[in-house]
C-alpha cells in the first residue's frame, strides 16, 4: 500500500478527493496489478520460447498460440460446413435408395468426420461433469453417514485412506476391463470410452468430497447438536436442518478440491486411453509431429488451464451462494 500511496503523491494524485483516490487505489490493485503480472508472464514466455529449439521447430510463443487458436476456430467452421454437406448428401442418397428399395428404413446418421477442438472441449466438459456429479451423488450422502457415526467412520477410514492416493493411471486399466466385461450391448446408449473416462474421474474425485463431508459433519458445533436434541428432531430433519447447513462450507471445500482433481484426471485418462476429449487432442497432436503441433498442444494446455480455472470459480460461486456464512468460503 505504501508504494501506491507514494505513486499517487508523486504523480500529483494527492490533490484528488479521498474517495476517488481510494477507488483509484482499488482499480490499480484489482486491474492494473494483475494485468502487469500477465504482461510480465507473456514477456518472459516469449523470451524463453525464442531460446528453445525443439525438433519440431521453435517452442511456440504467445503469438503462435494466438494464431493456432485462430486456425482451430477456422478448422471448426470448415468442418461444420463439411458436416452440413454430409447431411445433405445423406438425404439425397436416402431418397435415391428409397426410390429403388421402398422397404428401406432411411435414417440420418451423425456426421462421421473428425471432431474439432471445440467438439473435444465439449466432450471433456460433459464427461467431467457427469463423473463429478456421480461422485457427488455417492460421496455426499455417504460422507454424511460416516460423519454422523464415529464407529462407521473408524471402520471405513483406513480403506478410504488407501484408495484416495491411487492414481487415475492405475484405475484406468481396471475400469476399462470391467466396463468391457459388464457393459455389453448391441446398441449402446453411451460409448464405452465415455464410461471409462467418466468412471475413472468418479473414482478419483470421490475421496476428497467424502473425507471433507465426513469431517465437516463430524465437527459440527456441539451447541447445534444440543439444540437438535432439545427439540428432539427426527433424524432426517436433524440432517436437513442442522447438519447440512453447518457442513456446507466443508462439503464445498471438498467439492472444489474434487472438481480440480476431476479435470486433471480426465485429461490424463483421455490421453492414456485415447478416449475422445481434450486429452486425445493433445496426444493426437503429439503423434502428428507437424510443425504446428507444439503450438496446438500449448493452445490446448492453455484452454485446459482456463477451463479448470472457470470450473473452480464456478464452484466457489455456488458455494458462496448456498453457504449461510458468506465469509467461510475460502479464496
Amino acid at each position: 500500500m505504501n508504494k501506491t500511496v507514494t505513486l499517487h503523491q508523486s504523480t500529483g494524485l494527492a490533490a484528488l478527493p479521498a474517495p476517488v483516490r481510494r477507488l483509484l487505489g482499488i482499480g490499480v490493485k484489482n486491474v492494473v496489478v494483475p494485468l502487469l503480472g500477465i504482461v510480465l508472464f507473456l514477456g518472459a514466455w516469449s523470451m524463453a520460447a525464442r531460446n528453445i529449439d525443439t525438433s519440431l521447430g521453435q517452442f511456440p510463443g504467445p503469438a503462435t498460440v494466438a494464431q493456432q487458436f485462430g486456425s482451430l476456430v477456422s478448422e471448426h467452421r470448415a468442418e461444420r460446413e463439411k458436416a452440413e454437406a454430409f447431411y445433405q448428401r445423406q438425404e439425397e442418397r436416402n431418397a435415391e435408395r428409397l426410390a429403388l428399395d421402398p422397404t428401406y428404413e432411411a435414417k440420418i446418421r451423425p456426421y462421421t468426420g473428425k471432431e474439432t477442438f471445440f467438439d473435444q472441449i465439449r466432450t471433456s466438459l460433459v464427461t467431467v461433469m457427469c463423473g463429478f456429479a456421480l461422485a457427488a451423488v455417492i460421496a455426499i450422502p455417504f460422507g454424511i453417514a460416516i460423519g454422523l457415526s464415529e464407529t462407521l467412520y473408524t471402520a471405513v477410514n483406513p480403506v478410504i485412506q488407501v484408495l484416495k492416493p491411487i492414481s487415475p493411471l492405475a484405475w484406468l486399466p481396471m475400469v476399462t476391463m470391467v466396463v468391457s466385461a459388464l457393459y455389453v450391448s448391441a446398441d449402446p446408449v453411451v460409448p464405452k470410452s465415455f464410461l471409462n473416462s467418466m468412471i475413472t474421474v468418479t473414482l478419483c474425485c470421490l475421496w476428497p468430497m467424502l473425507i471433507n463431508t465426513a469431517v465437516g459433519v463430524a465437527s459440527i458445533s456441539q451447541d447445534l447438536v444440543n439444540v437438535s436434541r432439545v427439540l428432539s428432531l427426527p433424524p432426517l430433519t436433524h440432517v436437513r436442518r442442522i447438519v447440512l447447513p453447518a457442513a456446507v462450507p466443508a462439503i464445498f471445500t471438498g467439492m472444489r478440491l474434487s472438481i480440480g482433481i476431476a479435470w486433471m484426471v480426465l485429461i490424463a485418462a483421455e490421453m492414456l486411453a485415447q478416449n475422445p476429449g481434450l486429452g486425445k487432442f493433445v496426444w493426437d497432436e503429439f503423434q502428428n509431429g507437424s510443425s504446428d503441433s507444439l503450438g496446438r498442444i500449448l493452445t490446448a494446455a492453455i484452454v485446459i488451464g482456463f477451463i479448470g480455472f472457470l470450473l473452480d470459480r464456478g464452484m466457489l460461486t455456488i458455494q458462496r451462494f448456498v453457504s449461510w456464512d458468506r465469509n467461510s468460503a475460502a479464496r
Partner: protein
Amino acid sequence: MEAIHVFMVRVVCGAAALTVALTAPVAAAELGWPEKEELTFGFIKLTDMAPIAIAYEKGYFEDEGLYVTIEAQANWKVLLDGVIDGRLDGAHMLAGQPLAATIGFGTQAHIITPFSMDLNGNGITVSNAVWDAMKPHVPKQADGRPAHPISASALKPVIDQYRAEGKPFNMGMVFPVSTHNYELRYWLAAGGVHPGFYAPHKGDISGQLEAEALLSVTPPPQMPATLEAGTIYGYCVGEPWNQQAVFKGIGVPVITDYEIWKNNPEKVFGITAEFAEKYPNTTIRLTRALIRAAMWLDANANANRPEAVQILSQSQYVGADAEVIANSMTGTFEYEKGDRREVPDFNVFFRYFATYPYYSDAVWYLTQMRRWGQIDADQPDSWYREVAEKVYRPDLYAVAAKSLVAEGLADAADFPDFSTEDGYRAPQSEFIDGIEYDGTRPNAYIDSFPIGLKTGDRL
C-alpha cells in the same frame, strides 16, 4: 468354404451375374445393399493408410452406402484388439497381423483380408552417430555419394564395436509380426548381422535369442523421438517417420524396403472372418470403395498424389507436415540431408496388381515367421498354403473388382485375369541378397538362408 458359398448366392443375385459380369452392366442394387451401413475403421498414422482416407474424402464409401468413421489408433496391438472385440469393423493392418492372429501367435482370432493396401513404403533409419561410424564402410559411387543399396555389412563393424564396449545395439521396429520386423531382420541377416530368434514354445517372445542387434517394439510415431532420446540406434518404419528423422536432423535413412525386396507387399485391410460372413454385401462394398481409392491414388502416373498429400497432412489422418509426407509420396526419397533420389515406386497403391491379395505374399510372411522362430516347429508346404487360403481372400476381391469393371468404374486390364490367376506370383528374385522366392515351395525357401532356422531346427 460354406461361407463363401452362401455369400455368393446371396450377394450376386444368382451365379449368373458372376459369370457374365464382364459383359452385362450390374446395377449397384444387384450387389445387394450393405447389411451394416455405419462402420468404424481404425488406422495407424502412416501414409499407407491413404486408401482409407481417400475412400472417405472422395465419397467412395458413401457411394457404396457406407457411413464410415475413421479413427487413429494408439498402436498395432490396440488396433488388432479393436478389430477382434468389434470396437472396430475393420482396419489398416500389418500383413503379418491377420496371419499371426489366425495361427495364434500373439492373439488368437480368425482375421481375413480381401484387400492388400500397398507395396513398399518403409525405410530403415540409423542415428547420426551410427551413420558417421558406418559411412567409411559404405562404397561410394562416381559422384562421391554413397552407392545404394547400402548393405548391413557396413553396419556390422559398428555393431561389433558397440558390443565390444558392452553397449547392447538396440533397434526399433513397430510390432513383432510387422513387415518392418521382417524387413529389418532380412536386411541385417543379408549383411551378416544376426537379429535374434523367437522361441514362443519356451515363453520367449522377445525375439532376442542369439541376437547381435536387439530389436524391440516402438510405436511408429514415437520412433524419431525414441531415436533422439538414444534409447535405440536405428529403426525400420513406414513413412513419414524416416523422412521426419531427416527433417529433424536426428537420423539418416540408409535403405528403403524397395531396395530390400522390390515391390514387397505391405499393409492389408483386415476384418474378422465373422464380419465377412455376417455382412457379405458390406464386405464386397467396402472392398470396392478401397479399390477405387487405390486407383485414384495411382491414376495418371501419380497425378493425384499432391492432393493426397494435402488430405493426409490433415490432423485427423497422418497429420505430419505436408512437405514431409510429400517427400516420399511423390516419388522421391531423401536419404542423408540433401541426398534426394528418385524412388518412383516408393509408394505403390494400385499398379502391379498391388491391391490383389496374393497367397504367395501371405506365404512369404509365414516363411519369415518360421525363419525367426515365431512358428516354432516345421510345417509341411501344404500347411503354408492352407493358412494363406484361410486368411487371404482373393475370391472376395474378385467379386468386388468384377462388379467395378461391369459398371465401367474400372478396367479389366488393371486386374489379374481372374479366370486363370491361382494367387501365386511367379518366383521372385529381386531381393537384396538375390535369394529366389517361390511361394509354392516355402520349406525349400526357408532352407536357403544362411542365417535363420531351417528344416528340423527347434530352439
